[in-house]
């Protein structure tokens, strides 16, 4: 029975496909067509891909060729650059020292004309004083000022005004070694350059020593100097100098002798000096800026080192708006043999200057009016062109072409009448560069 059922089931299963056969034949015909169509499409796609791949391969080859060319070019450029750098080494060496502006040339020059009544002088003169600055590091500066000046005899005189090394030890102390301008008062160290001095001539007591000045312009030695702000107020400052140097020297043992340079010390004694300056008013005060200074310079002056030269001085500067007033006093004592008596000297000047900057007139606003009164007292003089008690009134003006180029005109009225240097007219073009 079971077998019979099985046979029946098998027979039914065989009949079902026969019943569906016509439809299956029709479906397989469509499918083949579709497949052929699919195959054709795929072949076309394959062909396109092959072409695309060939195209890409060509591009890659091109790029590789270009890359090789570029590599070659780059290698050539690098080789050239290396060669250029090697050949530029000396130039770079020089640039390291000069081209980076570690070395700076500044200074001043002047062309002057001078007419003096009594000695009947009528001459043009010229001076050039370049200042050479070399910054070795942020803490070390070398500076020097050689001065070239035309002299009466037609020669050009060259003087080493100063040559010093400045070492900034900290914010408050700078060590200075070498030949330096004498830090006594303001004129010698800070105001003597022609483009800074508002008149053509120097004040009587602060002329060059060879012209009758009461102090040397420079000395050789070692100095400590600096400045500081007080009470954290802008402009409320203090400044100081202390130094040891070769000291003073005179051109003879006579009373009234002129000071001489002391580049090589003439005795075993040293010269000592100090200066203190105080700016007692802060900048935000309405009454202007004031500077009060005191200086001293002392040392043995004679060859045997027996006699002292002592000096002290006071100076003042006041500035408010366009007005500037300066005054300096100096007193010196030169010890002499007992039977001769001391060679005492004193000198002073007061100078006022007023800029017409607020005058709303073209060209006139560049004018600065200047007046100065100066005098010297001393026992005697050895130079026949000097007098023991000269007085001088100097009047003039500066016409400022730029902040550092001035045309100056000065008239000097000298007393006593008929002194060897009596009355003068001076004019000058001064340039600070």
């Amino acid at each position: 029975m079971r077998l019979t059922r099985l046979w029946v089931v098998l027979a039914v299963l065989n009949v079902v496909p026969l019943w569906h056969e016509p439809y299956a034949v029709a479906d397989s015909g469509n499918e083949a067509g579709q497949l052929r169509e699919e195959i054709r499409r795929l072949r076309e796609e394959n062909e396109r891909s092959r072409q695309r791949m060939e195209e890409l391969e060509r591009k890659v080859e091109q790029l590789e060729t270009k890359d090789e060319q570029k590599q070659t070019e780059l290698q050539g450029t690098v080789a050239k650059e290396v060669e250029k750098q090697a050949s530029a080494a000396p130039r770079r060496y020089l640039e390291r020292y000069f081209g980076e502006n570690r070395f700076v040339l500044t200074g001043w020059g002047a062309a002057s004309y001078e007419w003096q009544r009594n000695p009947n002088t009528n001459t043009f003169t010229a001076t050039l004083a370049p200042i050479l600055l070399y910054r070795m590091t942020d803490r070390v500066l070398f500076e020097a000022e050689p001065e070239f000046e035309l002299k009466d005899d037609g020669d050009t005189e060259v003087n080493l005004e100063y040559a010093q090394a400045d070492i900034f030890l900290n914010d408050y102390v700078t060590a200075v070694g070498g030949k330096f301008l004498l830090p006594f008062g303001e004129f010698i160290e800070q105001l003597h350059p022609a483009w800074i001095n508002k008149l053509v001539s120097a004040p009587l007591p602060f002329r060059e020593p060879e012209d009758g000045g009461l102090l040397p312009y420079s000395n050789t030695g070692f100095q400590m100097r600096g400045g500081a702000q007080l009470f954290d107020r802008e402009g409320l400052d203090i400044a100081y100098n202390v130094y040891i140097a070769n000291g003073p020297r005179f051109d003879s043992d006579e009373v009234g002798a002129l000071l001489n340079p002391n580049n090589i010390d003439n005795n075993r004694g040293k010269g000592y000096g100090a200066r203190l300056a105080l700016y007692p008013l802060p900048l935000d005060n309405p009454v202007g800026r004031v500077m009060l200074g005191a200086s001293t310079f002392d040392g043995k002056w004679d060859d045997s080192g027996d006699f002292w030269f002592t000096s002290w001085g006071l100076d003042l500067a006041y500035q408010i708006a366009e007005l500037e007033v300066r005054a300096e006093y100096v007193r010196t004592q030169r010890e002499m043999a007992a039977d001769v008596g001391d060679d005492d000297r004193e000198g002073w000047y007061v100078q006022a200057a007023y800029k017409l900057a607020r005058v709303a007139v073209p060209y006139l606003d560049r004018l600065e009016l200047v007046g100065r009164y100066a005098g010297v007292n001393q026992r005697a003089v050895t130079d026949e062109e000097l007098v023991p008690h000269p007085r001088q009134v100097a009047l003039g003006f500066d016409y400022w072409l730029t902040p550092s180029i001035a045309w100056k005109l000065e008239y000097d009225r000298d007393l006593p009448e008929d002194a060897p240097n009596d009355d003068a007219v001076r004019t000058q073009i001064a340039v600070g560069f």
Partner: protein
Amino acid sequence: MRHTRLWIILLVSAAAFRLVGPGAARADEEAERRALVRRGARLWSPYCGACHNARPPAERSPAEWDTIMMHMRVRANLPAQDARALLEFLKVR
């Protein structure tokens, strides 16, 4: 657990410093420089004008002013901080 927290704090601090620190330091430096320039501008006329006409900043290159201000700091006994302020002002372009 404590160590883990410590490490997290340290890492976050380092990341914060890395992100904010240099920028903040640069900002501080720039603010300080600007303050110096302002101070230099105030000092330029009275300090330089104490002896001579104040020279315009454009007269010299910044590198030249570096050297010249060393010279002027010595010559005029300028307080160091004031010299720095004047230098920053003179170097502005």
